[in-house]
């Protein structure tokens, strides 16, 4: 009788430990972390793969072109969105800037969105009287950009009863600020077709 009781307790203990969740995840099985580098074809609107391909292609073409000799200072301007859809073009410029920074071929001046914060910080340090004078960064020492980098993205969308075709064209150019000459330019074309 005692052995039967012991056996049943052991069986219950085994079942309980067997059912314990020892996976390092919690929550619904319907939610998964995916591969951020996978080819995304959920819809044919502008997507993560397009962003990655554009940034990668443009950065490498520019870095390898040889125009960025001596790590010049570059100012990045927002990419003009000429498509009919909403695209966060700031993410394209951020990716290009990040990847160029990693190549070590260029330095970047404060762009138009960061300029106000930069000016505010300099004013605060120099005019508020809050900071120890020896630690204050002086005004008039900001480095001006030698080049400006600007681009645009446009699209051609065609629809029929069977197909939807989207053709994206991304253009980027590097312009010498002093001369106004375009010193480098490249394009990336992407076609996405949906068959209904």
């Amino acid at each position, binding site marked *: 009788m005692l052995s039967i009781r012991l056996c049943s307790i052991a069986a219950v203990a085994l079942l309980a430990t067997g059912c314990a969740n020892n996976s390092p995840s919690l929550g619904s099985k319907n939610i998964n972390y995916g591969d*951020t*580098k*996978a*080819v995304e*074809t959920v819809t044919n609107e502008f997507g*993560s*793969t397009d962003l*990655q*391909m554009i940034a*990668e292609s443009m*950065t*490498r*073409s520019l*870095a*390898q*072109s*040889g125009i960025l000799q001596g790590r010049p200072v570059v100012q990045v301007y927002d990419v003009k969105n000429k498509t009919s859809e909403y695209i966060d073009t700031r993410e394209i410029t951020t990716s290009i800037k990040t*990847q160029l920074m*990693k*190549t*070590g071929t260029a330095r970047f001046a404060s762009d138009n969105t960061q300029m106000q914060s930069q000016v505010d910080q300099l004013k605060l340090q120099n005019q508020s009287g809050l900071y120890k004078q020896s630690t204050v960064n002086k005004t008039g020492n900001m480095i001006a950009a030698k080049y400006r980098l600007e681009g645009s993205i446009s699209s051609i969308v065609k629809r029929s009863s069977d197909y939807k075709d989207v053709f994206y064209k991304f253009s980027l150019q590097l312009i010498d600020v002093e001369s106004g000459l375009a010193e480098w330019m490249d394009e990336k074309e992407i076609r996405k077709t949906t068959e209904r």
Partner: protein
Amino acid sequence: MRIKIFGVLALALLAGCATPPPPAPGSAASKVVAMGDMKNIEVGAMRVARENGFLTVNVQLNNTSSRNKQMYYRFAWLGNDGFPVADAEGWKSLTLYGSQTSFLPAIAPVPKATDFRLEVKTP
């Protein structure tokens, strides 16, 4: 006599089961990582150069079928120690028309890259 015949047969079977020798280090084949059966797509000659400090690669791809084939690919850029020197690239999709020979150009993301692997996969 029977034992000898069995012996010869066993040797022949063993030879048939043996895995092909690994590609020679530094050869074009050693740079390709096929993730599964490549279904009528052959990776051919490769041209590797260093231009303005960056490793550049051009890879020949052949579609041995008469039908259009789709494939996915990405490059992994390695340093002198054989380890990656940059973040993993995004996968890209490529369509090869029936019997087409195409070339895949690529530029390393950082000057530190001295070697590469081409990862390929068919759907």
